[in-house]
């Protein structure tokens, strides 16, 4: 999956949470204010199912999840390690 497609897919996921908000690739999703207590795990399950990777305990770092760019970077790194 291309980098653009990855980011577009991530933004599609967020669109239902960030109703009407134009989320930018570098926006801090925790600072935008739409995050609830369920989103963190929903995000983990989304990236695992959509991109066929496994998020593990050592991946638990806010830097990996704070923006669309960061999540795309995590997916790229995990996919490269698998490949």
């Amino acid at each position, binding site marked *: 999956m291309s980098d653009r497609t990855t980011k577009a897919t991530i933004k599609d996921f967020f669109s*239902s949470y960030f109703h009407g908000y134009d989320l930018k690739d570098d926006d801090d999703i925790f600072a935008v204010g739409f995050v609830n207590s369920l989103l963190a795990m929903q995000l983990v399950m989304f990236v695992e199912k959509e991109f066929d990777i496994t998020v593990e305990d050592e991946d638990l770092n806010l830097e990996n999840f704070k923006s669309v760019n960061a999540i795309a970077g995590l997916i790229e790194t995990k996919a490269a390690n698998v490949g």
Partner: protein
Amino acid sequence: MEVNPRQRAEQAEFRAFVDQEILPVADLFDREEKIPSSLMEKLAHKKYFGPVIPEKYGGSGMDFVTYGLLHEEIGRCCSSTRSLLTVHDIVAQAILRWGSRRQKEYWMPRLASGEVRAAFALTEPSVGSDAKSIEMTATDTGAAYILNGKKRWITGGQTADLFLVIARSQEGPAAFLVERPNPGMRIEAISGMLGVRASMLAELHLENCRVSKDAIVGRAGFGFSHVVATALDHGRYSVAWGCVGIAQACLQACLRYTSRRKQFGVYLKEHQLIQRMITDMTTNLKAARLLCLQAGYLKEAGDPGSIMETSIAKYAASTMAFKAASDAVQIHGANGCSSDYSVQRYLRDAKIMEIIEGSAQMQQLMIAQYSYQHYQY
């Protein structure tokens, strides 16, 4: 949405076991406020502790729908027994999801065999729904963490060998595995509860309780967002199915009672106001079971929507079970208020289900937020 023939066959096996081993003695457990160790051993022998643990760790690798059916059948007979399995499985799921490789390799086989029994320690004397305000502290000394504080209403706490304890560290909330015995942990039994009376609740007093640095599950700072979220999601799933079991028990009790007791010269089942309660019980039970099935299939598929659907299933099933149990007592009249009939236990147990694993009000907040986010208006 249906269960497949294999799942149906497994449910029949679960039913046969619980009808023989649990149903005849569930009221006694309730009165004595205790599940005997002999039953715990039978449950372990049947591999009902941590059945979804993968086979590579010694588990059964049971799918989530079959797991739901197991918890429905146990919940139909005894919510206390189901609760002890629930909290054990909550801890297993948290380790399976966020534990280190070493933690998984060490704990999974022990949790799958039931040799080690686990409990989840989140709630505190002053902290319930507002879980992020926990007061228990975890101080990093460099070589270890020192835990201080109290945990209350800990299901299975009287007998558990392993606790998943949530505390506040310098880096944020964190989840710690605390083994029993630990010289810094004192355990006090709690008795006299309204419902789920045999779930062997305890209060944990942690005073300079030392745990090693590798006792953390996941990473410090992610205790709530990931570890507790995983744990409670699993807990809600089990409770939802347990509630379906309670309501099924209520329905069967009412069908039996209304077919045997006469008032005004006819069996109760001939009275239309009784029929209305039976109708509501049947309809709402079927609706809740379908929500549970949907959540189960989504869980099995690893679908992120499963988390919200589980919350909806738990809310629907717990409120449904309480209404079913209330109507069951109403139908049974004075008999239903006596210890001669189990429906009074179902009512007391069902009330607890509206409180635990996120109260009905907390589910309402989440579900309303979900609706505003996901539907056009």
